């Protein structure tokens, strides 16, 4: 029954979204309140309907209703309850429904926030067009509510790699990010239609862009963290097409949240910012296309339904093609009379955009190049991590050179020498740490030392600039603190986020370059020494989990003879899928992670054990958290907070408004 209710709700949501998208085309004045009200109501109703559909799917997963194909294919009666819930989006159909739900929630959040305006009405309408396309995609190619006759006794279980807390919450954050850019996209299209891309437009868009960016940052970090501890290879980023699919919109979105500041402050870079908004969402769609259509999957990878690829490509053509056509027609009319000097915050932000867009284009070309070559010549090549590291990292390094002084420059007209002069403590620290790091890693590659030095320059520069601004060196701590609290949120957020980036880079250098590794056989009682620690294999026990069996190795970790703690690592076997997963044993410390994984047992030699010491690994996740925090702080920047609208009459609004999304 629940499946049928969900199906019906989805169909009604489709019709509502169609109305929401088409209403302005039916005629009537944008500025008339009946049209505005009806689009607003449609947005909320659509959100409510999708929520019902999503809850229905959650319900059939929760009760393991094996008469629903989606449950059969992705669940099992013995699966832990939490993963029955996360299994809702641990598959293609359910994850697309989550996509649509988040899209609707963003629309609803916009509908209940702010005053009604032509811009908002148009934005909601564009949002409706996107929603109708995606709901149609679900209904016609990826129906999660299809029944199976006859219902099997049990299901095929969820891919065990997905049965993990990190990956359970990774997709919702990722989609909150991807889909959040639908709003900035819709605003861009609406701005092109109205021809008004000004400071008010930027103020309306910026919180949404920042929210999307914050969620995407968290989503990518969660995915990377998951890969780090679950795949057992000690790495955190593989430049896999699926990873790149999330990274490209992040790079474009990062450029966007910067350039939006220029529109807000100076009403310049309008055309470029609109293009970035289109780009960020288009890249989210391209990512979806990439992952769901199978154009880039390797020979023996997943099965994909080609009709899905065709459908997503059609959506991409309509959304991106349509908006770029509109861009070609309308963008030339966007005029700016603002002026500024090249050496200024505006100029620095443009430089930031040059780096980020180049990096984004590089990742894009690297990701799709094998496809282009296949289409053009029929030969197959691979583009892997060595290419991306060689082509992407130099631009990031260059960007870091400019980051601290660029962020400290004054708006409109800055003074470069004076600014760099002010930041001398950061420069000195960066130089010192860079030299020390190079000396420590000698004769190894010094690129990582360079990276660490640049990170200190960028992060230290952000701190020094903050301290100077609050006069920390020349006034009592209390006064400085009050000044810090009164700093514009945009500045405070930027400083936190830049510091976060620096921290991430230290972590990437540590875990990516300075890591040490030992692979060897161990019998019970053997000791492996790495990173200054001695890990003794105490015992290996076999244990049964709910839907798996595990071999668990218990290590006791010592340092200089002093027992510190136990560390366990597991190898799990999931019989339903016939798959094996690793649960790495990780001891996270500020200076690095001790990371142990267990392999096969050889009768003669004992257990194969792979041990890593990954210096500063945890800094990556802390840094990513700081970046997200910074984005969140910046999103609460002043003007918007003053324009809250009174509570609305619609009861659906209360259900549909997501927490946090309206910040």
């Amino acid at each position, binding site marked *: 029954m629940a499946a049928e209710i969900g199906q019906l709700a989805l169909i009604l949501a489709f019709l509502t979204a169609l109305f929401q998208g088409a209403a302005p085309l039916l005629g009537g004045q944008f500025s008339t309140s009946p049209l505005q009200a009806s689009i607003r109501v449609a947005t909320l109703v659509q959100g409510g309907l999708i929520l019902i559909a999503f809850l229905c799917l959650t319900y059939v997963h929760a009760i393991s209703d094996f008469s629903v194909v989606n449950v059969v294919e992705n669940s099992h009666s013995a699966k832990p309850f939490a993963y029955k819930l996360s299994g809702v989006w641990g598959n293609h159909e359910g994850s697309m429904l989550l996509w649509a739900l988040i899209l609707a929630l963003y629309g609803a959040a916009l509908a209940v926030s702010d005053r009604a305006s032509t811009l908002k009405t148009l934005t909601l309408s564009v949002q409706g067009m996107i929603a109708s396309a995606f709901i149609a995609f679900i209904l016609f190619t990826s129906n999660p509510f299809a029944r199976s006759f006859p219902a099997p006794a049990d299901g095929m279980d969820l891919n065990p790699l997905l049965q993990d807390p990190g990956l359970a919450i990774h997709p919702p954050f990722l989609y909150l990010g991807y889909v959040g850019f639908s709003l900035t996209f819709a605003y861009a299209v609406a701005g092109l239609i109205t021809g008004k891309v000004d400071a008010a437009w930027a103020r309306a868009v910026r919180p949404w862009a920042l929210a999307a960016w914050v969620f995407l940052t968290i989503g990518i970090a969660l995915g990377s963290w998951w890969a780090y501890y679950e795949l057992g290879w000690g790495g955190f980023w593989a430049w896999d097409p699926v990873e790149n699919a999330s990274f490209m919109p992040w790079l474009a979105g990062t450029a966007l949240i910067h350039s939006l500041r220029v529109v807000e402050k100076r009403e310049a870079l309008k055309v470029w910012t609109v293009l970035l908004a289109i780009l960020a969402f288009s890249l989210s769609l391209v990512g979806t296309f990439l992952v769901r259509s199978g*154009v880039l*999957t390797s020979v*023996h990878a997943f099965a994909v339904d080609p009709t899905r690829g065709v459908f997503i490509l059609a959506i991409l053509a309509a959304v991106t093609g349509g908006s*770029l056509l509109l861009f070609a027609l309308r963008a*030339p009319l966007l005029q700016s009379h603002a002026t500024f000097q090249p050496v200024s915050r505006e100029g620095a932000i443009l430089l930031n955009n040059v780096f980020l867009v180049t990096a984004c284009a590089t990742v894009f070309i690297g990701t799709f190049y094998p*496809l282009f070559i296949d*289409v053009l010549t*029929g030969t*197959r090549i691979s583009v892997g991590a060595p290419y991306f590291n060689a082509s992407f990292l130099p631009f990031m390094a260059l960007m870091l050179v400019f980051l601290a002084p660029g962020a400290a420059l004054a708006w409109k007209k800055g003074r470069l020498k004076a600014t760099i002069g002010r930041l001398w403590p950061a420069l000195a620290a960066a130089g010192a740490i860079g030299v020390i790091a190079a000396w420590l890693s000698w004769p190894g590659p010094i690129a990582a030392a360079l990276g660490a030095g640049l990170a200190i320059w960028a992060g230290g520069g952000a701190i020094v600039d903050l301290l100077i601004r609050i006069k920390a060196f020349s006034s009592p701590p209390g006064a400085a603190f009050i000044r810090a609290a009164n700093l514009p949120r945009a500045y405070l957020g930027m400083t936190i986020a830049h510091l976060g980036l620096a921290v991430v880079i230290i972590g990437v250098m540590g875990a990516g370059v300075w890591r040490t590794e030992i692979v060897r056989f161990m019998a019970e009682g053997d000791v492996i020494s790495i990173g200054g620690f001695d890990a003794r294999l105490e015992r290996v026990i076999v244990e049964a989990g709910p839907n798996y069996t595990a071999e668990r190795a218990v290590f006791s970790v010592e340092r200089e003879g002093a027992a510190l703690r136990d560390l366990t690592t597991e190898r799990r076997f999931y019989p339903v899928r016939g798959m094996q997963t690793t649960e790495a044993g990780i001891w996270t410390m500020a200076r690095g992670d001790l990371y142990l994984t267990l392999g096969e047992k050889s009768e003669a030699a004992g257990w194969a054990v792979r041990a890593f010491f990954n210096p500063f690994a945890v800094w990556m996740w802390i840094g990513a958290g700081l970046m997200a925090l910074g984005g969140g702080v910046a999103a609460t920047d002043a003007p918007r907070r003053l324009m809250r609208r009174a509570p609305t009459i619609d009861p659906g609004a209360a259900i549909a408004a997501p927490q946090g999304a309206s910040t």
Partner: protein
Amino acid sequence: MKRILFLVPLALFVVLGIYFAVGLTRDPSHMPSALIDKPLPEFDLAAIEGETRGFATSDLDGEVALINFFGSWCISCIIEHPVLMDIAAREGVVIAGIDWKDKPGAGKSWLDQRGNPYVFIGDDPSGRTAIDFGITGAPETFIIDHKGRVRYRYAGPITPQIWQRDLKPLVEKLRKEGDDAP
């Protein structure tokens, strides 16, 4: 002039869209072999346990043949197996098999159970010959011409449709080439 600049993103996107569209029509399992038109790799494989005759490069001299990589562990091979039986019986095509990374005796009992379409069977427990062929999975099938050159590689289980559409015409063409040659 300035307006043209605004068309650039759209133009780039159209080009991209065409690539994506063509990309969708590509068969992702299409993996051109690096060995096409090159001579067969040199190998001399022992018989699988329970059989007496092995399989070496020289066994196929002058004959258009199929070389099929299989393994008793490979589930797709079970699906492909009846098709190979049919091809061997009805079309009179020489099929040689290479048992890839199997446990001793497993290949033999697998064939005893299902029938043996292979004229020669070589055992490749180390997988070294498979690497020489550039194998990416099982099953995979190569078509060899009368000069002992690799002419085609198919990755994945051969279905009757694929046999009729792609492989059979090529085998017939190669046989004709062989007959025409002095």
